[in-house]
């Protein structure tokens, strides 16, 4: 599974902010740290703000601050904001045929595993995983 660019931007930003919830960080700093487009990130930050996951502070020294609960927010909640995950796509020709139904059974299994994985990993768990990667060479 390859996450879409917007999803990846959102996860970088949310996790960067959640690691230091007291700190305000500008979108430009996040964009630079993860080598992502500042324009793209700005759009993503607006969505995150609307979802109540970040607060934006205006003015000099302004920036963003994490405003969610890292022990409650899961990767699924963020990923689903930017892409269709685990959702049934629209009906396509052939879906009702025996092959179409068999394929549907397989893709449903894959989707269910993806969703349960994303739903069971909180930001807090991912931060712990990140720390483990930081301590490894």
């Amino acid at each position, binding site marked *: 599974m390859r996450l879409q660019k917007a999803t990846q931007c959102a996860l970088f930003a949310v996790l960067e902010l959640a690691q230091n919830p007291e700190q305000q960080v500008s979108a430009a700093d996040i964009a630079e740290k993860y080598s992502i487009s500042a324009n793209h990130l700005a759009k993503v930050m607006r969505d995150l703000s609307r979802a109540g996951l970040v607060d934006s502070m205006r003015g000099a020294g302004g920036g963003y601050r994490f405003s969610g609960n890292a022990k409650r927010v*899961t990767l699924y909640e963020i990923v689903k904001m930017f892409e269709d995950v685990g959702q049934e796509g629209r009906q396509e020709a052939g879906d009702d045929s025996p092959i179409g139904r068999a394929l549907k059974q397989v893709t449903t299994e894959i989707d*269910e*595993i993806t969703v*349960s*994985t994303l*739903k*069971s*990993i*909180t930001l*807090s*768990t991912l931060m*712990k*995983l990140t720390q*483990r990667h930081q301590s490894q060479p």
Partner: protein
Amino acid sequence: MPKLDNGLAIRNSESSDVPSVVKLDARITGINKADYWADMFERYGKRENRYFLVAEDPEGKVVGFIIGEVRAWEFGSPPSGWVFALGVDPDARLMRVGTILFESICACLRKSGVDTVRTMLARDDELNMAFFRSLGMMGGPFIQLEMGLSALSSDAPTAGEKT
């Protein structure tokens, strides 16, 4: 029995704990399985490399239990620890009962000579999956498969029958 900071004590189960475990499990799952838990105690509470631990609160009430064992060469896997039952009193949540029970059984499994611990969960059991993941567990190298037996021919021979 040493008490932990939060007043909890972890110890091996005793036969007198079985009614408390039955009650706790029935409260969590809604199903009373007295015979099952009595059998679990016989199989896991008394044997080497098998662990049936309970957590007691400061008043001596059983507020959690965990069961695990070392299994070797199942599915081709070298000896590893398995945790297959965990229950925590809903009133004792957020007291780290589950975490302490898990850490205790992991210490027991390590002493038994294994360096990996596994468990299995329902795909939609997000609460427990999030709990185990928060402790550092990740998806392992195995995948569970199943099928309804009605999909197989009922003409297949059973053991001892000739085709």
